[in-house]
């Protein structure tokens, strides 16, 4: 028995939102449609994750933000490219230390924190859902490898 559960959630409708030009104005408009501000670097809010300085990953329907976005940026469908994996249980942080470079055990990596970092050479985007669970967006083509890595590693975590 291990203290971490690895659960494959499959793909979801995802869009990459990229803002150009005057990002403040566009962000304001999108925020209105979303009902909340676009999250800062390293954070997630609602169904939006910050990916990079100019991009966000939006899960679910994007009709509303698309309408308000205007020519301040673009939404690009991307959901087919990610396998979503939920790591839950008391040892999920410990599991992320296997084959990693990022301090997933840091208290600073709290709820709604987002980070992209390589695990077992594969760049994975992580979102802390709760103290008990973390959602990983894994490049779909690497999912089989990474799931195997996590399953094997879960059996050898330090006590």
């Amino acid at each position, binding site marked *: 028995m291990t203290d971490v559960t690895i659960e494959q959630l499959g793909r979801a409708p995802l869009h990459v939102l990229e*803002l*150009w*030009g*005057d*990002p*403040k104005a566009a*962000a304001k408009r999108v925020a209105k449609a979303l009902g909340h501000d*676009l999250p*800062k*670097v*390293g954070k997630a809010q609602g169904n939006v994750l910050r*990916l*990079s*300085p*100019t*991009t966000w990953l939006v899960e679910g329907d994007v009709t509303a933000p698309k309408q308000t976005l205007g020519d301040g940026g673009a939404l690009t469908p991307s959901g087919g490219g990610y396998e979503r994996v939920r790591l839950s249980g008391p040892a999920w942080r410990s599991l992320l230390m296997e084959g990693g*470079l*990022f301090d997933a055990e840091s208290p600073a990596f709290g709820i709604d924190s987002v*980070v*992209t*970092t*390589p695990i077992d050479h594969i*760049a994975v985007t992580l979102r802390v859902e709760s103290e008990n669970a973390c959602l990983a967006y894994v490049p779909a083509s690497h999912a089989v490898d990474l799931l195997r890595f996590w399953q094997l590693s879960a059996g050898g975590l330090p006590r």
Partner: protein
Amino acid sequence: MKLIPCPHCGNRAQAEFVYERTADSVVPLDAEPDAAVAALFARANPRGVEEEIWRHTYGCGSWMLIRRDRVSHAIEWVKPLGPEALP
């Protein structure tokens, strides 16, 4: 392995970053032929401090300018590059 202070993500392991080229080897789109050749093929390659372009490739993907000592690896400063970004 160095820590590199990504302007957006803070200190992260060097293995998350990829070196691209020196700052002076960017060939502007309107470069004159001789300037383009010089930018591509003439390097100071100092045994000392140089300004370099790196990318947080396996992290946030952003580009940055790093002023760094090539002997001690000590980083003097890092500046973000690219289009205007929100915090």
